[in-house]
């Protein structure tokens, strides 16, 4: 009988993120190549891991067609040079793809079936715009199951402003600006770069090398944000300045049982405590992380006060703010997204979950006084996902709470 195991986050890396579209750095780079390069980078960073010990590979993408099709986990494993004995599969939970990869592989390890697994995601939104090629069932409209506006994420963000009048455009803009500033500061301090795997990129003017996220706008000001168009409705509140841009990128993580990590001499950057996914009305998908976080806290036997660090995906500033308001956390609480978030870095849908974990893991190293951290994100069509992690560097002596 296999025994239940503790699940640890060994390591995570990602490609630099690129702006989606023809002008973006990855316009001529295949989506599968992005995830493969990230996987190779992950394996090279963990030379103690014999590749044949990988029990499974879960790779997420939202639009699983073309260079994101063909059972990504399997094809990426082969392309990354893993032994053919290593299986793989593809995952889709739209924006929470990579997070679901981690929850799935984590569960497989936790249930004792696996020792080591790779979990990640990729989204090339330039090559695969959200919803491209989808054929929604006409019943959604005919039976009014979902408001047509719910299929457009910007509209769902506007709807959040409607629902919670206290979530003003000014607050959202300020949150967006601070995200830009925090990312710029983190870059300047060299916090982000160590986990980036550079990617060679072909352009009409020859080969280059992507080494940084492409969408950052550190010069952002409140005055500038006020002038931006509101593309989803006239005189609306959601702008390019308080939302994440369309993004290309890939992320991947290595998970293991605590025992396997010890036996193989792998690092333990985080321990998985609990996870949850939850559904909400698709029209206000941005509040999804509220019920999923409550559920994860419940499963962990924790309260929100136990969480010392938050990595919340900034699909839209307003949906992060809705969670903060719900839990009574200040907009500028230093525990929240200390190095900024998706507003500046970008949100390549199915890849973003692991990016949150990569950053949380780094922050754990710097904050031994923090015991628990949360990674959470909203999901299109009305879902939320949350994973709670424990800091292995935690030391009560350094002022920790528990």
């Amino acid at each position: 009988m296999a025994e239940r195991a503790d699940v640890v986050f060994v390591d995570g890396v990602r490609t630099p993120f690129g702006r989606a579209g023809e002008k973006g750095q990855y316009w001529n780079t295949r989506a599968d190549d992005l995830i493969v390069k990230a996987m190779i980078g992950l394996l090279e960073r963990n030379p103690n891991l014999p590749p044949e010990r990988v029990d499974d590979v879960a790779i997420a993408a939202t639009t699983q067609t073309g260079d994101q099709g063909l059972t990504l986990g399997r094809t990426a494993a082969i392309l990354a040079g893993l032994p053919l004995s290593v299986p793989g599969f593809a995952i889709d939970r739209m924006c929470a793809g990579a997070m679901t990869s981690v929850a799935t592989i984590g569960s497989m390890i936790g249930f004792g079936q696996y020792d080591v697994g790779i979990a990640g995601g990729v989204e090339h939104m330039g090559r695969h715009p959200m919803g491209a090629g989808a054929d929604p069932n006409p019943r959604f409209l005919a039976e009014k199951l979902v408001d047509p506006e719910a299929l457009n994420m910007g509209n769902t963000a506007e709807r959040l402003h409607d629902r919670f009048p206290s979530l003003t455009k000014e607050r959202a803009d300020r949150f967006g600006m601070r995200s830009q500033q925090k990312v710029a500061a983190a870059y300047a301090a060299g916090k982000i770069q160590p986990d980036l795997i550079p990617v060679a990129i072909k352009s009409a003017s020859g080969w280059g090398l992507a080494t940084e996220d492409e969408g950052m706008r550190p010069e952002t000001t409140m005055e500038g944000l006020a002038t931006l168009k509101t593309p989803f409705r006239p005189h609306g509140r959601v702008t390019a300045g308080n939302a994440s841009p369309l993004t290309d990128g890939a992320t991947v993580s290595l998970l293991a049982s605590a025992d396997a990590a010890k036996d193989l001499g792998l690092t333990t950057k985080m321990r998985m405590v609990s996870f949850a996914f939850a559904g909400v009305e698709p029209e206000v998908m941005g509040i999804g992380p509220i019920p999923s976080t409550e559920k994860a806290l419940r499963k962990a036997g924790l309260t929100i006060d136990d969480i010392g660090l938050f990595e919340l995906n900034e699909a839209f500033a307003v949906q992060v703010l809705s969670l903060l308001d719900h839990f009574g956390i200040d907009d500028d609480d230093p525990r929240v997204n200390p190095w900024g978030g998706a507003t500046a870095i970008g949100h390549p849908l199915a890849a973003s979950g692991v990016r949150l974990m990569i950053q949380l893991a780094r922050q754990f190293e710097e904050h031994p006084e923090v015991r628990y951290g949360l990674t959470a994100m909203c999901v299109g069509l009305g879902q939320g996902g949350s994973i709670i992690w424990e800091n292995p560097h935690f030391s009560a002596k350094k002022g920790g709470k528990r």
Partner: protein
Amino acid sequence: MTDFSKLVGLDPDEVITHSYVRDVRMPSGKTIALITLDNDRDHTRPSTLGPATLLELSGVLNELKARAASAEIDGVAVTGKPFIFAAGADLSKVEDIPDRETGVLMAKLGHETLGKLSELGVPSFVFYNGLALGGGVEIGLNADYRTIDSSVPAFALPEVFLGIIPGWGGAWLLPNLIGIENALEVIISNPLKNNRMLKGPEVFELGIADAMFGPANFLEDSLKWADSVLTGKTKVKRKNEPGKIERAVKWDVAIGIADKMLASRIGRVAKSPYRALELLKAAKNTDKKTGFAAEDEALADLISGDQFRASIYAFNLVQKRAKKPAGAPDKALARPVTKVGVIGAGLMATQFALLFVRRLQVPVVITDLDQERVDKGVATIHGEIDELLQKGRIGSDEANRLKALITGTTDKADFADCDWVIEAVFEELGVKQQVFADVEKHISPEAILATNTSSLSVEQIGAKLKHPERVVGFHFFNPVAVMPLIEVVKTPKTTDEALSTAMVTAAKLRKNAVITADTPGFVVNRILAKLLGEAMHAVEVGTPFDTVVEAVKPFGLPMDPFVLLELVGLKVGAHVLDTHHAAFPERFFESPALHELAEFGHLFEKDAKGKPKGIDPKVLKIVEKHRIAGSTPYTADELRTRVEDGLADEIHRMLDDHVVGAPEDIDLCLILGAGWPFQMGGATPYLDRSGASERVFGSTFHTPRIVGVA
């Protein structure tokens, strides 16, 4: 600075390979200027290096040198577009080089441009990301450091194969990088092994590349490695770089051995291997400038000479004409071949069966007179398949598959569903007619009947059939698995459908097919019969064997006529001469001496190791017996003229009789079927340039002649 504008004018339509530059900031803080060589076409049109391309690169390198001087960049790297680093000069343009002086300019432009890679003031790197040939390889040799992608399928300095030398630094730089023996292999031996190319790991092993990385992250890893060289973290050691001892002791010895090996393998007619050898020899103790200057001269001499032009002609034949055979009917007419019958179970038949089953992967049934022979044939083929398995050429699944596809029978009814039947029985008209007639009873009216005859009329072989229109000649050369040529013989009755099926089948067998008319000896045997008949006649009139060998030496053939006779077998040789004499008694000699020699068994006396020492004295006695009364021996010059004129005459007649459509097809057959050398261009460029064509028919095969400009 030399003025190269004259070169650019030669090719106003050059597909320019651009030198795109992007700065790459490395995590260490170093900046590498990365040049991408890209002609903006896909990988099916490799980047080539014409004059305008080199001038653009030269300008870019000038700018980078200036930027290096102002400390804007810390290194320069060069890589290629996907799958391709760079091929060399665009060979389609060499015919336009008007004089030797232009040849010198070509060499100098390459040297001046690529030479800048070692004078930038910062380290230079070349990342061989894909195919690299000739000048493409030399770009890297001129740089300070090189990396190679482990998946690179082709990396070579093929210049000697084409009648020139690596003249953009390769001949001097390579031996000084990887040692003389390795350089000899890359620059001389490989080109002469049918232009053998290196794969990525070999390039690394030889020490041409300092580091090797896998294809998934090749450029990223190369940049990272270059960065570590720039920061001093990586120190490059070159294990094959020649030291003092190698220069003092090994170098000249290796050159001497190579010289002897060359002379024994290909004779001394071909110029380029020997010019390359001279350059490699001198590279031992000359400085780079002197070495490059010597390359300029050698390249200019060769590029403006006859042999290079003939070689390029020959190269284009095997690269282009061989792939689009003249006179081939529409491929769509070809019948699918889903089962093959082979009549015969002897040596030739088993070779056919093995080739067909490997390449077509359809059932192949062999037959012979009795079960014992059939069983032996099947066992032979199974043994060959096992050998392929042991050598790792095929896997065990594939071996099982192939063995299961091979069956033997004595009942020709088992041929009923064959789409293609080929015979390999005794070379006698009646026998071949009979086996085809037997098979025709069982097969469909459209099934193709192919004969491997080398000397009989294909039309007559099919004369007694109900459906002679499905008969084609399908003439292989020995050894079947190795020789790339099939002469596909079309009779006046052969349908386009049958012919197309034969051509498509030949291509599936990975052979080059040339369509010939149904005339004696088709192409290759007729030409060889002329040559060998003249050679035997010459000795029968008292000409010493040595004089005969001497007479044809300037051709540079792969072997002399007597070695060739012994190789094909004296009996076969005598039979071939008889057949041609019977067909064209006024032009082809039969050789009574050869018949008796065939009975005797050999021409050469051999030493204990089986190496020929010379003509057996008993052979001389036999020949003397057959001395034609009142005859006078030829001098070497007389005989050479006779042979040249005889060949020119025969080829001219073959073209008049439409045996093939053009002299190009004759040359292609001789190159692929008889190994005639590139420097002759097969035969016709040589016959034109030696004056034989003019002497015999007052004109030339090619207008203008394929000759140099020197």
